[in-house]
C-alpha cells in the first residue's frame, strides 16, 4: 500500500485538467448554487436504462472518474428510485422495459423530474421503429429536459444537468 500512497502524493489531483479547467470552473459554480437552492445541497439521480446500447451508461459511469468527478458538485447517482429527485432515462423504451420504467418512476417521491439522455429516448438515434420499441418516451412520461448526443460525452451530460437546474 505504501507504494500507492507515494504514487498518489506524486500525482496529486488530476481533476483540474488544463483543457477542462475553465469550462468546469464555470459549470461547478453555477451547479453548486442551483443545487443548493432547489435540492438542499445535493441532487440525487436514479439512472434507468430502458434499452440503450450501453454507451450512455458508460458515459454516466465516466462521470465518476477522476477527470470529471461529478460527486464533488453535490450530484449523486443513487441505488433506489425512492432516494431520487430525478430519473435519468436512456434507451428506446423497449416493449419489455416500459412497465418497469413506469414503475420506477412511480416509486420516486414527488416533486420529481425526468431527464432523457442520448438520442434513443426521443427516437433520434439510428434505430428505427419496430414491434419491440415504444419510444419516444414523451408518449409515456413527462420529460423536463433532454440531453442529446449518441452518446453525449460526460461534459455534455454535466452541462445538460446544469441546464436542467436552470430550467426548474
Amino acid at each position: 500500500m505504501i507504494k500507492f500512497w507515494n504514487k498518489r502524493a506524486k500525482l496529486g489531483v488530476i481533476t483540474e485538467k488544463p483543457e477542462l479547467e475553465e469550462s468546469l470552473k464555470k459549470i461547478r459554480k453555477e451547479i453548486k448554487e442551483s443545487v443548493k437552492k432547489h435540492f438542499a445541497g445535493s441532487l440525487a439521480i436514479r439512472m434507468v436504462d430502458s434499452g440503450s446500447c450501453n454507451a450512455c451508461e458508460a458515459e454516466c459511469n465516466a462521470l465518476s472518474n477522476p477527470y470529471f468527478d461529478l460527486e464533488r458538485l453535490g450530484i449523486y447517482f443513487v441505488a433506489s428510485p425512492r432516494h431520487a429527485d430525478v430519473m435519468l432515462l436512456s434507451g428506446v423504451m423497449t416493449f419489455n422495459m416500459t412497465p418497469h420504467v413506469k414503475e420506477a418512476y412511480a416509486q420516486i417521491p414527488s416533486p420529481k423530474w425526468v431527464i432523457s439522455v442520448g438520442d434513443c429516448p426521443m427516437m433520434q438515434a439510428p434505430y428505427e421503429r419496430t414491434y419491440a420499441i415504444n419510444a419516444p418516451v414523451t408518449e409515456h412520461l413527462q420529460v423536463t429536459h433532454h440531453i442529446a448526443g449518441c452518446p453525449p460525452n460526460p461534459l455534455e451530460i454535466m452541462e445538460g444537468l446544469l441546464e436542467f437546474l436552470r430550467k426548474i
Partner: protein
Amino acid sequence: MRFIARFCKEKSECFEIITIYDEHSEKEEISKENPSIKTITKKNPAGIWFERKMHDDFGIIIKDAFDKRPLVHQERFPKDIHPLRKDFTQHKLQEAPYLPYKYEEIRGDGVFQVAVGPIHAGIIEPGHFQFSQAGENMLHLEVRHFYTHKGIEKMLEGKRLEDAKPIIERISGNESIAYQICYRDIYLQATKQELPLSLQKRHALLLEIERTIHHLTDVGFIPNDAGFGAALSFASKLSEEARRKMRELTGHRFGFGAVSFENSFIDIDGFNEWLNDLEKSLDFFEDWIMDIPSLWDRFDTTGILSLKQAVKYASVGVVARASGIKIDRRANPFYLEHGFRMVNEESGDVGARFKVRLGELKNSIEMMRHFLEEDDTVLEVAKICDGEYQSFCESSMGELFMSIDIKDGVIERFFARDPSFMNWQAVHIMMQKDIIADFPLINKSCDLSYAGNDL
C-alpha cells in the same frame, strides 16, 4: 466440436434451421405447416436459449425440449405472434393481460427466493436474476434477460447493407468496433474484395483500443465490487485516457462509424507516448493490486467455472480462457505476426478472469505498437452481390458471430450471436458454491453485455 449458434431463416417454401459448430455447420429444412424440430440441448445445453428464441421469433416447436417457456416474449407480450416471420409487419404492440413467468425455483423448508432487477442499483443495463437461497448460500440462480430487446433482426430486414451500418455499430456500445469488423468482413465477402493490409492494421488497432478501454474499466470495477474503490479510481483514469485516444483517432469516443475503407492520419509519436505511459501505469497497478491479501481472499476460489463445465456450455472469450480453454478468434497468422499471444488461466475463478484481463491488456499494448502505421490507402468498394455470408470477430468479451443474407440487394435475414449470449448461460454454474454477496463480484468479473445479448 464446439457449438456456436443455432438460428432460423424463413424461405419462401420452408424454414431453414442453421446450426453452426466450429468445424462445420448443419442445415435442416422443415415445412411451414406445423414446423417442429428436435432439440440439440442434450449434447449442447447452451442451445436452449437459441431454441426458446426460435420458438418466440418463428413459432417453431421444439419437440423434446426440457424448457419450453418463452424467452424474449415477456409477461405482457401478445400471445401467438411471431415477429420474425415475414408476414408479421406490425410496428406497435398492445400489451396483453399479464401472464406470470414460471421461474426455476428450488423450494423447501427455509429456502427463499430473492429477485434482483431488471433495474439494478448501479448504472448498468437491465436484466433479471432470480436466486433460490438457503440463508446466504445460493442454491440456484436463473438469469432472465431480453428486457432491452429492440427487434434489431427485424429492423435490419429490407435495408441495403450500407444503410444497416449505423444500426449494427450500435448493437452493443462496448463492442462497437467488433460489430463493425464483423460487418466489414461480410461487406467484403459480398463485394468479393480483399482488404489491404494497411486497413486491416488500422481496424485491428481500433479493436485493441476498444478492448483496452473495456478491460481497463473492468480491472477497476472488479476490485470495486470487492470493496476496494481505489482500484476503480486508478483504472477509470486510464480508461478515460484510452477513450480520449479513441476519440482522437476516430472522432468518436466509442468509435461509432470508425471502421471504414479509408485510412487516415495517426500521430504515431503521440500514440507511442500514451502506450508507454499506459504500460508503466499498468505495471504499477499490477504490482500494487497483486499485493493486497484481503482482495485476493475475495477473488480466489470465488465463482469457479470448471474447464469441464466451460466446455459443456461452449463458453467463449475471457470467461473461457480463464477456465483453461484455448480459444480466441485472433489466433490467426495476421495477429500472430503482430505479437498476439493467448492469455490463459486454469482456475476459472474471479481471480483468473481478472488476471486474464490484465494479461490481455499488456498484450494489446504490444500489438498496438505493431499496428501503428502512417498510411492513406483507400479501398474503392465494388458492387454488392446477393448471397449468404458469415463472419467472426473477437470482441473484448469474446467470439462474436454474425450472419447476413442478401437477396435482391437488400438484407433478407440478419442474425448476430453476441459472446454474452453463450456466457450468460454459464453464469448460474459459477454461483453454486458461493454466497449471494459474491454475486455482483462474479457478475462483474464476466462483464457481459445485455444489449448485445437481447438484440
